[in-house]
């Protein structure tokens, strides 16, 4: 028996196509990895898969039909966690799903199921953190800009939230790590890349001469508010860090008081 390895382009679509091909070619791979990732098996037979939206759609629809309620997106979120080896876990889960078991997403006694649930929760939590810790800066020309560095690629997951919330406002959310952003203008969001970056690559601060006049005023007021709403007698820095991880501090104007 040969050892098969499936490689794909690293996108979710490519991965789903990979699953489709496993069924199509009747192979049970020992590994499914992104082309760019490293491979553990030396003497395995590699099959490279090109993404195919039609095949991917069929797999995704099949998964949707078998999953219930709020778990429908679980596998996608788990995939976004980019954990090493997550592909095989999803693959084994899908195998079980398609072989007729039902409700397997609640079988937390199974290591794969529990792992996928937890991975998807991590991603959802990171998306929540975007809703919490994104801070827009009002720039000249009226655009509200925020550059931030989420641990996972979650900007697409929160676009809907910001779109509903700031319907009458032009805004741009930029992922500094993955070097792309989503801009909302004229009632529709679209993906953008920026060539001339007029902001800090480290903390997303826009160059001062490009900020709208009121910006400094509101940031100063916000810092004032933040210092004065604190109750000194109850100081608990550990609790603060627990809720608001250090890695976000550089993006938050209120935490720049000391710097």
């Amino acid at each position, binding site marked *: 028996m040969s050892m098969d390895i499936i490689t794909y382009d690293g996108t979710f679509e490519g991965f789903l196509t990979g699953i489709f091909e496993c069924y199509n070619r009747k192979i049970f791979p020992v590994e499914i990895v992104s082309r760019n990732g490293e491979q553990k098996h030396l003497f395995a037979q590699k099959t490279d898969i090109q993404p195919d939206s039609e095949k991917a759609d069929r797999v995704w629809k099949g998964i949707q039909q078998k999953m219930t309620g709020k778990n429908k997106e679980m596998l996608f979120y788990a995939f976004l966690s980019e954990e090493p080896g997550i592909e095989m876990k999803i693959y084994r889960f899908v195998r079980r799903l398609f072989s007729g078991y039902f409700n397997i997403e609640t079988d937390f006694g*199974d290591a794969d199921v529990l792992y996928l649930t937890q991975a998807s929760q991590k991603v959802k939590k990171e998306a929540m953190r975007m809703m919490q*810790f994104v801070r827009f800066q009002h720039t000249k020309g009226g655009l*509200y800009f925020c550059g931030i560095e989420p641990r996972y690629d979650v900007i697409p997951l929160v676009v809907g939230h910001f779109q509903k919330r700031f*319907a009458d406002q032009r805004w741009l959310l930029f992922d500094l790590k993955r070097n792309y952003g989503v801009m909302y203008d004229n009632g529709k969001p679209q993906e953008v890349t920026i060539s001339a970056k007029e902001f800090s690559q480290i903390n997303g601060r826009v160059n001062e001469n490009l900020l709208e006049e009121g910006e400094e005023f509101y940031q100063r007021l916000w810092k004032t508010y933040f210092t004065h709403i604190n109750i*000194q007698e*109850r100081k608990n*820095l550990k*609790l603060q860090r627990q809720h608001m991880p250090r890695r976000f501090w550089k993006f938050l104007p209120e935490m720049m008081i000391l710097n």
Partner: protein
Amino acid sequence: MNKLTVQQKLEILSDAAKYDVSCVSSGSNRKNSTKGIGNGVACGICHSFTEDGRCVSLLKTLMTNHCIYDCAYCANRRSNDRPRATLTVDEIVDLTIGFYRRNFIEGLFLSSGVIRNPDYTMERMVQVARKLRLVENYNGYIHLKAIPGASPELVHEAGLWADRLSVNLEISTEPNLKLLAPEKNFPSILSPMTQIRNEILASKEEARRFRNAPKFAQAGQSTQMIIGATPETDRQIILLSSGLYKTQNLKRVYFSGYLPVNLYDKRLPALTSPPLVRENRLYQSDWLMRFYHFKAEEILTEDQPFLDLDVDPKLGFALRNLHQFPVDINRADYEMILRVPGIGVQSAQKIVLARRHRKLTTEHLLKLGVVMKRARYFVTCSDVVLAASGWTPERLKHKIVAGSVSKNRKTLDTQLSLFGNFQAALPPLH
């Protein structure tokens, strides 16, 4: 007098508002249907956390800290000599919108000291909410404090614009309220509370029949009590809050550990630090009632006026009722699994779902997030018999407490040193 800048006003007024505990932005799913700014998110969003570890979700400020009352527990009492300021309606509206557009906050929490009379104060607060909704096209969260003694018409209008209303009880028994806040009385606090409850119920009823019926305070109402300023027992407090949940349909009862703000007032106890552990235990009890299907009477029985500061109330319950344990993880009801110390709501839900597929073992429980250090004394699984039998409550308590390293264990926390005449009706527990 020099005119204060907005920044100076905000310094004074947020400083004065920080003792209001409520900072919840949940429970409202107001839609941004006007294509303006803002929407409600049912689960609420915390946007920042201050050094005390409390969440900053709302722009929490007083409209003014001038006050005609002289309540002993309040930093803004009339007789205190401290800087006073008043934000105008426009200033509050601008601040709210400016912060909201930058995603600093989830909404506005507006409270106020009472100027001239309750109606005058309430009227101006309602103006803020009205302007936000109608002029600024704002659909985000608004929490207004109902001023005790304000007219029902104003409270009604406040409820139409706001997502949540609250009236602070502050002191949980009438005689003590009379002692510390002679100008206030219980009926003036309870009557707006009752009115708000009735209007919320009526508006829900209405919404069932007419889709577009106006919603009244859709995120419900809450209240707050100060803990440790007066000699009420924990049992009294818990019974009262459980009563409020039932009769007034409150969403939340907040506890605020008393901070010695007016040291000169001899009606108050001299505390060196706020009773944080006691406050925490009360919140834990509150959680037991709201999420763990506990009844107030189960948390503290008649012979126990105070919560045990060494162990959380859930463990306390389990120790008093060892005969109900161990619980068989693979068979017991959800309610019973919830009562096991070390198992939270999420693990309990996972357990009842997962055990349909296979028998659960201790290893499963560990992976599901159960704190086995505690739970092992109270459960049985399919694999091994755990250490669940043969314990006396005292020994088990000692064993568990010794095993958990907590820097917060202070037994002297509930001490009310200045109430020389206060004596516990019953002997101390330990």
